[in-house]
Structures are given as structure tokens and as C-alpha cells.
């Protein structure tokens, strides 16, 4: 019996280290692909000035869809900020998703909105619309008041009411760079027939100076939880997504900022209801639809920082966010399980879906098991010291290498942290996140898996400090 137990422990440990090694190699490949793609992007970007895009008439009009739920305090400022974006032709559609506070009244009063009618085609399903509001003073603004149905439902209502060929889903609590739409529309101008979705890079606004709904001075957060997330966002948004974009296997376009072709989204039935990972689900649905019908298409990721969001500064809120993200990923993998490792779906099935299944579902469980089993096996003599050290080296040393490398990639190409002091802080965070933060994240992912298995739904409460208050600190 003891022999079999020892054998089981040994094989589990070996599996844990092998998966970690495979993950490290995949990250290394991502780093290389991301470097190539970033270089290409910078050269492409150099070729067109945003002002020309603004005046040239080649850009497609965009409908900005802004789902809002209990955003009473910030909605008016956000609408003003969105109406001031640099773009030739766009409309802002704010969808009040049955807020329990005075979100609608705040917008109606401050912007002088009145009830209006607008003809629309019910192309995708959503809950009942209670009223539409507009104002002659802001002709490109429409506020939809509807029954609560969740973010997907709100976005579907926005899609139906939108009038332009492209729509951009934006979180009501995000800040868009004034040239954000000009940056993300480029791929649509360059490949109008093939492009169906473009994702923009999200950065954290904690520590930045915000004035009139715009980031006026870049800064780093003083809060250590937020600082770790800055490094994490760099790794996720600059390294991973850029690499997936290069392989046309990008599975996530952040719900905080993404531009989609309206007709393509309608073809796949819009956003799915009853999911907390509606952003990933839509992108996977688009891949699936086009791959199953052999229709050529492409999606691209724009690494310019176009959207700024506020990161949770407390571990409790971060935990809620991360467990929700994990549930979203699992829901999406369940809904499209036939795509996982399927060659029929090309790079999306084998690389993209395979990656999420292996490293987002199996990975955290195996890694956490490894935290316990490998030291234990070493202590009781099942594993050699060399094996234990190899595990630690992969876990910590390789982790540090990847975090620091993605930071280097960002700074060498985009130079987004102007001061040497800020760079030093980020380097410190890139090292330290491998000791504690990474492990916590894995535990939260397992908790997310548990919640998914117990069929937990809903978003949970996400308390944010707000840009105005963050700025006063």
C-alpha cells in the first residue's frame, strides 16, 4: 500500500513539474511572438498620423455601447468624456440596465434628456426597453432605459439600437484615451473585408492623474495589490494577447474595450445571456461561426494603451473579481467544449482553447497540488533534492524571468513608464509577484472552479474607489 502511495505521489509530482515546464515554454514562445508582433505594430503605426484618420473620411462610423448598472455617481462625467472623443463620426449609447440607484435620473437631469422614439430592428434578444432618451443638444447621444438583464443583455439592446457598422463595448467605469477610437479602427481600415473584431489594450489608472475624464499624468499605484496587477496586466495584455493575435487565436477581447463588426456579432446571436464571461464567449462564438463555415476572417489586438480602468486595491475585492473571471472562462469552455484541441478549428481550437483548458483549468489545480506535494515528497525522501530545486527554479526563477521580460518588452518598445524610479518599482513588483501573489491567484482560480461546479452565478459586488477619489489621495 505504501509503495503504491509513494508511486502515486511521485507521478503526481512529476506531472506537476512537467505541466509547469510546458507552461513556461508556452510563455516563452508567447514572449517571442509578442516581440515580433509589437515590432510590426510600431512600424505600421508610424505610417499614419491620427489626425489624418480623423479628417480623411476613410474611418467607419462607430457606436459606443456603454452598459451602466448603478453608476449614479460617475455616469454624467463618463458620458461627457465619451462625447469628447476624437473621432469623425460616432454615437454614444448608454444602456441603463435597470439600475437600482438614480443612474437614469442623474443623466436625464444633467444632460437635459427627453423621451424620444427610435426605430430599431430586433436582431438579438434582450429584456424589455422601458424608454429611450435623447437631447437635441447632444444629437449623438442615446440613453436606453431597460429592465435589468445583465451586461450581455444590455449590450444586446445597444446593438439593436445602434446605427453604425461597428460597435465598441465600453465599461461605464473606464476612461478612454481621447484617440482610442482612432487607434483601434486602423485594422478595420487596413483589412475592411476580413476584420471582425479588434481588442484594445487596458491599463490600470490607479496612481495616474485624472482630469476631465482623461489621464493627464501617468503614475504608478502606491498600493501593493494594485502594483502587482500593473505587472500582471502588462504580461496579460502585452505578451499573451499580442502573441495570440499574431497566431489569429485570440480568445479574449476585454469587455472593457473592444470594437466589433455589428453584422458579424448579429450573425452569432449577439452576446450570450446568463454568463459572466460574455466578452470571451462572444469572441469564441465568432471564431466558431467563421471556422465552421470556412469564411476567411481576422481579429486583431492593438497594443496601444487605449482604455484605462481601476484595479481593486483590496484582496477581498480582487478575490471576487478573479473567481468571477475563472467562472467566465469555465462557462465558455463548457459552452464550446467541442472546440478544445479540435484541429477543425485550427489555431483557435488547438492552441487557444487548448491553452485555456490546460493552463487555466488544470494548471491551477496541479500547481497548488505541487506546492504541497513536492516539498512533502522531498521531505519524506520520495523526491531528490535536485527535483525539488528544479521545481523551485521553474516556479520562481522562470516566473521572474517572464514577468521581468514582459516589462522589458513594454519599456523597450513603448516606454510607458517615464521615470527610472517607477521602472524600479515595477521591476520589484515583477519579482515579488512570484512569491505570494501568484499563489493567491491560483487559489482563487480553484475557488472559481469550485463556484462553477456549484453553479454559482452573478457578478458579486465590485466596489471601486472611483477615479476622482483615487486622484485626491
Amino acid at each position: 500500500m505504501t509503495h503504491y502511495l509513494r508511486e502515486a505521489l511521485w507521478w503526481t509530482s512529476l506531472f506537476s513539474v512537467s505541466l509547469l515546464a510546458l507552461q513556461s515554454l508556452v510563455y516563452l514562445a508567447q514572449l517571442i511572438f509578442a516581440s515580433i508582433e509589437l515590432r510590426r505594430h510600431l512600424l505600421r503605426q508610424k505610417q499614419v498620423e491620427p489626425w489624418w484618420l480623423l479628417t480623411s473620411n476613410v474611418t467607419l462610423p462607430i457606436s459606443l455601447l456603454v452598459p451602466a448598472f448603478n453608476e449614479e455617481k460617475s455616469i454624467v462625467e463618463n458620458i461627457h468624456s465619451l462625447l469628447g472623443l476624437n473621432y469623425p463620426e460616432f454615437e454614444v449609447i448608454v444602456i441603463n440596465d435597470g439600475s437600482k440607484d438614480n443612474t437614469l435620473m442623474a443623466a436625464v437631469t444633467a444632460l437635459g434628456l427627453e423621451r424620444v422614439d427610435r426605430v430599431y430592428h430586433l436582431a438579438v434578444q434582450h429584456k424589455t426597453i422601458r424608454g429611450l432618451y435623447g437631447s437635441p443638444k447632444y444629437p449623438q447621444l442615446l440613453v436606453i432605459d431597460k429592465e435589468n438583464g445583465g451586461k450581455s443583455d444590455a449590450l444586446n439592446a445597444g446593438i439593436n439600437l445602434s446605427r453604425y457598422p461597428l460597435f465598441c463595448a465600453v465599461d461605464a467605469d473606464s476612461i478612454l484615451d481621447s484617440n482610442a477610437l482612432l487607434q483601434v479602427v486602423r485594422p478595420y481600415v487596413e483589412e475592411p473585408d476580413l476584420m471582425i473584431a479588434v481588442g484594445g489594450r487596458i491599463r490600470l489608472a490607479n496612481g495616474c492623474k485624472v482630469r476631465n475624464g482623461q489621464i493627464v499624468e501617468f503614475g504608478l499605484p502606491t498600493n501593493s495589490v494594485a502594483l502587482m496587477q500593473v505587472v500582471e496586466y502588462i504580461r496579460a495584455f502585452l505578451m499573451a494577447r499580442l502573441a495570440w493575435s499574431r497566431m489569429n487565436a485570440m480568445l479574449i477581447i476585454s469587455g472593457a474595450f473592444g470594437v466589433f463588426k455589428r453584422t458579424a456579432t448579429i450573425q452569432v446571436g449577439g452576446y450570450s445571456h446568463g454568463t459572466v464571461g460574455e466578452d470571451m464567449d462572444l469572441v469564441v462564438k465568432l471564431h466558431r461561426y467563421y471556422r465552421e463555415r470556412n469564411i476567411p476572417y481576422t481579429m486583431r489586438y492593438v497594443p496601444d494603451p487605449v482604455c484605462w480602468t481601476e484595479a481593486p486595491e483590496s484582496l477581498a475585492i480582487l478575490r471576487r473579481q478573479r473567481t468571477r473571471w475563472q467562472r467566465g472562462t469555465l462557462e465558455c469552455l463548457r459552452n464550446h467544449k467541442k472546440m478544445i484541441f479540435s484541429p477543425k478549428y485550427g489555431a483557435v481550437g488547438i492552441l487557444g482553447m487548448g491553452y485555456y483548458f490546460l493552463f487555466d483549468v488544470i494548471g491551477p489545480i496541479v500547481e497548488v497540488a505541487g506546492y504541497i506535494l513536492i516539498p512533502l515528497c522531498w521531505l519524506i525522501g520520495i523526491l531528490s533534492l535536485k527535483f525539488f530545486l528544479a521545481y523551485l527554479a521553474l516556479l520562481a526563477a522562470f516566473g521572474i524571468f517572464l514577468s521581468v521580460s514582459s516589462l522589458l518588452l513594454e519599456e523597450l518598445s513603448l516606454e510607458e513608464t517615464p521615470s527610472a524610479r517607477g521602472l524600479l518599482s515595477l521591476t520589484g513588483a515583477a519579482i515579488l509577484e512570484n512569491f505570494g501573489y501568484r499563489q493567491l491567484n491560483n487559489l482563487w482560480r480553484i475557488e472559481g472552479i469550485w463556484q462553477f461546479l456549484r453553479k454559482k452565478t452573478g457578478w458579486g459586488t465590485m466596489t471601486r474607489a472611483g477615479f476622482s477619489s483615487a486622484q485626491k489621495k
Partner: protein
Amino acid sequence: MDLLFTVIQVSLAMAALSFLAAFCLVVERWHRNRIRERERARIDQLIVLGLEYAEMPEHHSALLQQIGKRDRRLLLQAFAETIPKIRGELADQMVELMRSLGVVEAGLQQLKSWRWWRRMEACEKLQWHPQERVIQALHDALDDSVFPVRVEAARALAAMGAAPEIPVLLAKLASAGHRSLRVAELFRTLGDTHTEQMISALLSNTNDAARLILIDALSQSTTPEVIDAFRQIFGTASADVKSAVLRAIASTQDPAAWPMVEAGLQDSSPLVRAQAATTAGSFADTRAIPLLKQLLHDFEWWVRYSAGESLTRLKGPGLLALWDAAAGEGLAAEIAGGLLREKGLA
């Protein structure tokens, strides 16, 4: 197990390397920030100096003596910042000053670089020096194997007023595999001066990519000749080209363009019908009303919507047609009623 030892060694080496690289980056950033501040101040000084000496060609040699090798690099930067902002004689003098500093030779040398982006940058820099050998070198660069270099060479030649013939440009730049905003921009800038050539190319070219670029460029000046060319290709064009033509003629109210709108309203492609309906609205021609009214029954929502929207823009008779449709049944009544409510006219 040697593999384990290798894993330990590689991981540690990579971590150590990343530490070292990060340390170097922090030091470099600190150092560069200081240098940048100093260089910025020097560039500002050199801009003033350059503007001063540009007006005194006889003192160019004196300036050359005043500036060191490092300053020459900064002077190029100062030149790049200044030249787009100045005009006339002063600009010419500034260019002359730069020539005496050897910018042309440096640019021509850079045009031979094995790195394509260096060649691209060289094309950009050389646009200020319209000399025979520069023009020749840029013409040669139009045959470069890299698309962005060809685009930049063409732009530089156009900026010098030495743009090649339109068919040559189309052959080099308008392949279906490459799309570039810069190409569209280039053709737009040539739209006024090369109208005849563009019309002739539009009539002789069957490549959709080339046609779309030409239509976009010609839409800036919709002369009778341009309208006539659009009319000639319209019948045989693809849906994309037809839509582009209809978009281009939307701003003109030339009666000669009307047959295209009429044909577009009856086209088999919903894309074309929707665009034609929108264009008909901007024409303010009541002849469109029967056709637009018919399109209110179209199976495509966007076609129905565009037709209804255009009827509202045709005011009196258009609105009467819309009211009439709203009083009926089916898809037409639904869209017409909705639009009238939206406009507050129900």
C-alpha cells in the same frame, strides 16, 4: 537526472539575465532622461541658430565651425521639427543649409541600408531635397521588395512634385494583398493634379483594390468627367465598387449621376440598394420617391431603414409617402411608422 540540472541552470540563468537587463534598463532610463533634457535644450538652441543662419547663406561655413559632430545629429532633428512649419524663401534657405551639412548624402546612403525601415525613413527625409539624383534614387526605391518602402518613396516623390504616372503607382502600390491608409492618402493628394490619368486608369483597370482607391481619390472633385467615368464603370462593377461610387456621388447633385442612383436602387445586392437609398436622400430629387417607397418592403432591414430615412430627408412629398406607407401593413408600415415616431412626426 541531468535534465533536472539543466532546468535549474537554465531557469536561474534566465532569471539572472532578466535581473541584469532590468537593472541596465533602469540605469539607462535614468541616464537617458538626463541626456534627453540636455538634448532638448540644445535642439531648441539649434532651431534658433538654424533659422538665424538660414537667412545668411554666406555664413554657413561659420555655422559649420560652431557645431560639433554631436550637434550635427541634433541639427537634423531640429531641421525635421522646423521645416514643416516654415514656408517660402526661409524654407528654401533652411533646406540649403541642411544640404551644406550633408543631409542628402546621408539619406542616399541610408536608402541602401539592408534594414527596410531604414530605407523607409530615408525616403521620408529625402522628400525635402528635390534634386535629380534624389528623384532617380526614389524612383528606383519604387521597385523595392518591401511595400512600406515603396509607399514612402511614392509619397516623397509626390511631395517633390515628381510623382510617377498613375498606372505606375497603381502597379506598385495597389495590389489586393496590401492595403494602406498612406496609399489612399497619396492618391487623394494627387486627385486634383492627376484627374485625367486617374479617370483613364479607372476605366482601364478591373482590379477592385485599384478602383476603390481611385474612386476615393476622385470623389474629392466630382467634375462632369469624373461622373461620366463613374457611369461607365457602374454597370459592370462589383457591389463594393458600386457602393463606393454611390458614396462618392452623394455630395454632388449632378443630374448626370442620377441614372446610377436609380440603377443602385434596383440592384440585386442589399449593400448597393442601402447605399443608393442613402444617396437618393442627399440628392433631394423627388423622382426617387416611388423607388424608395418600394424599398420600404425590402427583405433587408437596413435597406428599408435607409429608404425610410431618405424619404424623411425629401421633406413634403417624401413624408407623405412615408405616412402613406405607415398607414398600410407589413414591413413597410413597421419601418415607416417607427421612423415617423422617431422624428416626432407620427
